[in-house]
């Protein structure tokens, strides 16, 4: 609130130069600071987008709920109401439970793969190694390549006369060569492997960023206390990047539930439904079989699963935060 006043040397005309202090708004201290409007006009500005997005989502959910009570092929003017039959049929259908089982296996494996490998890559590249930027790019490139481009390449790699089997034969391991995508026993693992390969870069980049936030003094203190590399990673770095692990867990869970691209492009959910997921199941029932009502019921079950899982994970996260806060206070 200081006002700097200078007086002209005597004899001159008095002139006051007024310069507002840095913390004072122009116009003088007497004016009150105006607050940006946050009432009805603000809501008005966001209303179109809000109505569009929320309306689109919730209206479609409600509408799907209506369709889920119909026996309808999606085109015919004849829509037969079947009540909750579509839901009971889904819950008693082995294909639904098979798709769910594949989803769980897929989730566990891809989450572990992405987390462990991403963490190791990030740790390695945090150390001073040559050509680190090149390695970062190489690890991250699969994340940005479209599945539609990668899937045909992997179909060639895992074909009976493909790259992998040729490599195995070349190094004398020909007896391990398999028709990888043609067997129910191996097809799911190929899909999982391809997904891990694709997503490791994403885990890596999150871990790399998180590790960059760790105070060097903490690491230095651990070193002074005699901790080796493994011990530092396990006891210092990993606890500090636990938030990243939780983020990956949630993202992987959501991604697994809505998975469609790789199972469809690599194996078309086969052979014999061995790589069928909820996404491919819903697509097949809708587009191929024409059971749109049944597929809508499946979609709602998928929604319930996704929301339920998000609630559980968020609740677990809050509990952990509370626990940590209590520990910190103690």
């Amino acid at each position: 609130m200081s006002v700097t006043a200078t007086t002209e040397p005597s004899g001159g005309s008095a002139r006051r130069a007024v310069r507002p202090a840095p913390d004072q708004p122009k116009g003088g201290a007497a004016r009150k600071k105006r607050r940006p409007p946050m009432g009805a006009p603000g809501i008005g500005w966001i209303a179109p987008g809000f109505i569009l997005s929320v309306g689109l989502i919730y209206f479609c959910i409600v509408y799907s709920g209506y369709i889920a009570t119909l026996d309808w092929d999606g085109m015919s003017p004849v829509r037969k109401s079947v009540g909750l039959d579509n839901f009971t049929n889904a819950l008693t259908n082995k294909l639904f439970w098979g798709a769910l089982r594949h989803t769980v296996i897929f989730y566990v494996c891809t989450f572990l793969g992405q987390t462990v490998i991403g963490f190791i890559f990030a740790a390695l590249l945090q150390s001073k190694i040559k050509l680190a930027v090149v390695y970062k790019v190489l690890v991250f490139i699969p994340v940005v390549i479209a599945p539609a481009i990668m899937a045909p390449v992997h179909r060639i790699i895992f074909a009976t006369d493909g790259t992998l089997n040729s490599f195995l034969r070349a190094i004398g391991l020909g007896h391990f060569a398999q028709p990888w995508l043609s067997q129910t026993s191996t097809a799911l693992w190929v899909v999982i492997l391809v997904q891990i390969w694709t997503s490791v870069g994403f885990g890596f980049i999150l871990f790399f960023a998180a590790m960059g936030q760790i105070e060097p003094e903490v690491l230095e203190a651990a070193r002074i206390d005699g901790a080796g590399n493994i011990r530092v990673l396990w006891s210092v770095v990993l606890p500090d990047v636990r938030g990243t692990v939780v983020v990956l867990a949630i993202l992987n869970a959501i991604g697994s539930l809505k998975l469609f691209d790789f199972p469809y492009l690599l194996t078309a959910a086969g052979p014999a439904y061995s790589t069928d997921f909820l996404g491919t199941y819903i697509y097949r029932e809708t587009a191929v079989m024409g059971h749109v009502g049944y597929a809508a019921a499946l979609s709602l079950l998928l929604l319930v699963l996704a929301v339920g899982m998000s609630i559980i994970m968020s609740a677990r996260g809050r509990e952990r935060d509370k626990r940590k806060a209590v520990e910190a206070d103690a």
Partner: protein
Amino acid sequence: MRTALRFRTVVAVAAAAALTITVAACSDSKDAATGDGTAATATGEGGDSGGSGADAASPDTASSVTGEVAWWGWTPDKDVGDNYITEFNKVYPNIKVTFKNFENTQYKPSLRAALAAGEGPDVWNVAPGGDTGGVVLYADYVEDLTQLATNWLGADFATKWTPGFSSNLTLDGKLTGAPLGGVAAGFLWINQTLFDQYGLSAPTTLDEWVDVCKTFADNGIICYGLGSGGGQTFASELLRVVLNSIDPDFFLQACQGKREWNEPIMVQAIEIMRQMQADGIIEQDTVGKIHYPDSNNDFMSQRAAMNSMGTWYAQYSRKSSAIASMEAAGVSNPEPFVMVPIMFPNLAGNDWTPQLFAEVDYGLAVNKDSKNKEAAEIFVAWLTMTEEGSRTVMNALDLTPSLVGVEADWDKVDLVDNAVQKPAIQELFGEVEKIAQVESRQKLQTAETLQALVVGVEQILGTNVDAQAIADQIQADATVSPLQP
């Protein structure tokens, strides 16, 4: 005050617009459910305008009609479809037709979405049944072509077409599509050039087939290209051939529910197919391959010596089509090879070899809400109801034309080896007219049955699941839909 009012008005209008867009985006038009067609004209989903076909195009006035027609299909190949259009435009230059070809698996989802959105094509392919173009899938959107056929062929139009062709495209008394041509499957195409190169003859028994395959395998060539994966139905056609070789009546009877899919004959067929795989006739990773494009590319690039496609494959006997399809299969500067049709060898050791099966392949439907309906009808009528249109179809060697008694203009058909291929193809196409079935397999198979057979074949050739268990599963899935457990 005025500014505030204007702002509120803008917000209100924006909100209303957003809500309208939301509802419109999610809704699939309630009016479709009412079936009254009142809103259908606007959405392109229905309406009875012209549905009876009473104002169908006539040959008398066709020459003065202009318009643009969009045609969608999963077949023929783009070059063949474009050739049909070129020939059509020689007669009707004022009607512009564009053809869009889809992969089999993408056709139904694309067309259903377009029709539901009121943005469907003017003309599209329909089949008697099946999962791709079955008439029942699109019947609500098609014009009844009875009057059109009457105008161009007379009241007895059905007799002008191969028997069964029009009836298999008729639904509830409505001619949903004009049959373009017939197709036959249940036989093999062989690369005669490769057979000659290795001194081999077409096999007639299972043992001979094993020997042929051994020779090809020793030379790094796939013997019999068969893709069983990807949800396509080609491998279930092989299952039908094997079943026919045991009991020619079983397959259609099982489709009709007169026989059970888990009868001993099915188990026997499964064991024959597995033996064919164990003997090296069927590839080990057949389930990892998709017939189109994988096995097609194997054959067209001469990596495979045999393939079980249908009559539509005859088009690749033509030099120009062979070169185009070989290039599409990844061959640079291709030298077209000689391909000829042969019957399947005797697979079950009976006294007969399995016969091919034939029926109408597809017809052309006209969108009853097309803005260029008259032009669309003229295009359809010319291809399916005139001799010159039918000859164009025949010359392409893609289908046997629906109109009876039409011969190819063989002088215009540029076969790779006229002496070898012409008699073989003439014989094959002649058979279609003779044996075309009134009971359409496509029409009899439900989506559930097709899916059950596709998955069953994947289990046969990709797993060690017990044969009886596979047959039981096919029986269960073929007859049970999710709503009728």
